[in-house]
């Protein structure tokens, strides 16, 4: 039966079906369950009401990221609700024997859930990985099937280590060509979503293939898989290869010795077989890309940084026209206006999309020896405690601080603006995060999404800037 050529997705799916009754979704086994403070309290409460404990605490790992302040951790948490949520996570983890990377325990490894999973070697090829968070797609960069779930599903996984799932369709997302200098992985994913829209992946799992993907580092691959959900897909995957294995080797939870050899042999069987069929295919030429920026209020409203804001009058479809008008009104932008030179109030470098060490190095490369524009708030928020330490070993924090940027403690911070790090109404931010929805970074705040390079360049000038003009 398994002689039929299969995709990476199908191989992982087939290996995890515990039961499949007719007319019912599959019961899918979950290898790794990541938990954070915001989407889990009601799930643990549900478990308690059933008189159950977590079935596999050894496959469950928790962190504090969404609501945790990014100021000095010795200071008390003033937001009472956030404090209560954090205390509940601590209590739920302790009662169930779950490892928590938080404030009181595991603080040296705390961080954004999608940054620490890979960093600790918890994320491995061939695994099924879930978290009550839509950016769980990030873990697909390792050739795992990772997707976000709601709190009811978190409760189910806590109780059973399984999930009821209907099999999604597969889409081959072919990215060929070679990136030009100054164009990054973030521009690939923003370019893809601008081309195909925020609903293109609904019902599908993306597999990113093509020479441009093979050339990317693991951190760049994570940036791309991370934003699969912004393209409508619950999961985005990349076949594991030597780049993957080299990145993983020696990490805390990665297999060691003979276990590693055995795992490696299995991982090498995972890539999609020659002749395997996808349900759909889309493509993008990476070589034709420019640095991208969004102008609107969903991640699909993006364009090359040198472009002009589209004109609603040129849009035929009435719904699209209305959406564009609404977005431009919220953003305070005019049709046909260039974005280069548009002032910003805040620069946010962080989030599970772009807060890894390579992102910080990119930003530091531009900021070294320069100053951020006077009056501008520039926040650099590392994705994890380990990223923060590594950056400090390399002296990156000194570059940021000397330039006049803030160097914060790890967390989601202004990506979701629920911990006090937020925009004021009307402020413009250029952000390396993944969502530019109305109010996402603070009520009334207006977000331009871009790469760390673009964000750093704009930090220097105080206006939206093409980093290539500063890189020469």
């Amino acid at each position: 039966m398994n002689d039929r050529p299969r995709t990476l997705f199908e191989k992982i799916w087939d290996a995890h079906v515990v039961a499949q009754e007719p007319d019912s979704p599959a019961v899918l086994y979950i290898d790794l369950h990541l938990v954070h403070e915001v989407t889990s309290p009601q799930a643990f409460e549900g478990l308690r009401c059933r008189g159950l404990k977590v079935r596999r605490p050894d496959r469950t790992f928790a962190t504090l990221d969404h609501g945790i302040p990014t100021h000095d951790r010795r200071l008390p948490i003033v937001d009472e609700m956030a404090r209560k949520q954090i205390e509940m996570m601590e209590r739920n983890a302790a009662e169930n024997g779950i490892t928590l990377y938080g404030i009181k325990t595991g603080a040296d490894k705390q961080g954004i859930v999608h940054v620490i999973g890979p960093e600790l070697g918890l994320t491995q090829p061939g695994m099924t990985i879930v978290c009550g968070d839509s950016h769980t797609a990030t873990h697909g960069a390792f050739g795992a099937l990772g997707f976000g779930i709601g709190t009811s599903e978190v409760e189910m996984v806590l109780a059973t280590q399984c999930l009821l799932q209907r099999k999604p369709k597969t889409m081959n997302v072919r990215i060929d060509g070679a990136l030009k200098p100054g164009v990054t992985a973030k521009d690939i994913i923003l370019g893809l979503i601008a081309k195909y829209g925020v609903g293109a992946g609904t019902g599908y799992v993306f597999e990113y293939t093509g020479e441009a993907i093979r050339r990317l580092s693991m951190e760049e691959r994570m940036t791309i898989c991370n934003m699969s959900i912004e393209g409508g897909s619950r999961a985005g995957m990349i076949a594991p290869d030597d780049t993957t294995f080299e990145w993983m080797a020696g990490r805390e939870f990665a297999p060691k010795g003979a276990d590693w050899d055995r795992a490696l042999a299995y991982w090498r069987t995972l890539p999609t077989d020659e002749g395997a069929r996808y349900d759909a295919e889309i493509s993008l030429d990476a070589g034709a890309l420019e640095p991208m920026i969004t102008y609107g209020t969903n991640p699909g409203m993006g364009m090359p940084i040198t472009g002009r804001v589209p004109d609603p009058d040129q849009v035929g479809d009435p719904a699209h026209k209305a959406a564009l008008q609404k977005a431009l009104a919220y953003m305070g932008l005019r049709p046909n206006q260039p974005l280069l030179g548009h002032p910003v109030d805040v620069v946010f470098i962080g989030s599970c999309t772009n807060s890894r060490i390579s992102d910080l190095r990119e930003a530091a490369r531009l900021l070294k020896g320069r100053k951020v524009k006077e009056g501008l708030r520039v926040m650099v928020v590392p994705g994890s405690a380990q990223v923060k330490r590594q950056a400090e070993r390399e002296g990156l924090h000194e570059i940021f601080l000397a330039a006049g940027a803030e160097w914060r403690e790890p967390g989601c911070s202004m990506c979701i603006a629920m911990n006090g790090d937020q925009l004021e109404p009307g402020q413009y931010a250029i952000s390396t995060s993944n969502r530019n929805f109305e109010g996402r970074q603070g009520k009334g705040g207006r977000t331009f999404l871009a790469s760390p390079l673009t964000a750093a360049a704009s930090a220097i000038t105080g206006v939206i800037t093409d980093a290539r003009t500063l890189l020469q």
Partner: protein
Amino acid sequence: MTCFTTLTSKIVPLPVDNVDTDQIIPARFLKVTDKAGLGDNLFADWRYDAEGNPKPDFVLNRPEMKGRQVLLVGDNFGCGSSREHAPWALTGYGFRAVISTSFADIFRNNALKNRLLPVIVDKPTHQQLFSLCEEAPDFEVTIDLAAQTLTLPDGRAVGFPIDAFSKACLLNGVDEIGYVLRMTDQILAFEAAHHK
């Protein structure tokens, strides 16, 4: 667990495409540790002004919309995050069904688990419903889950898709976690054989 069978209600129209979960329930309201009270903050940033007063022009604040249990929205409703607070806010407010041409995958799952029925209709029906909302805003629709139909005021019954399992769960009030817990033997056998 309560069941969903049929529902007859007037409609609240919200003709916006790609309504994301940050609009349904902004992140600052996610600091709760239970599910209560989220309905008050449904669509908070569209619904209230800076002082927290209801904006008279937002559809939910129009007096005649009170008590309506069906929400009609644009394409790709519920995109964005996995927060189940979105369906909690919708059901907390009193909605029991949402009509669109498409729903984001995670939102759809979350809605079904909270007995909030996502009703997917084709583009012409979708447009007809929005036109009706302008011409005769007080019309009623009937949603019959067993028959999988949405009946319009002209008597036309339009079918909508739902997978057999979710339908059975909604109709009979099945506890999905209980369903999987009954498979514990199979899970144990799977774990014993699972090579990692």
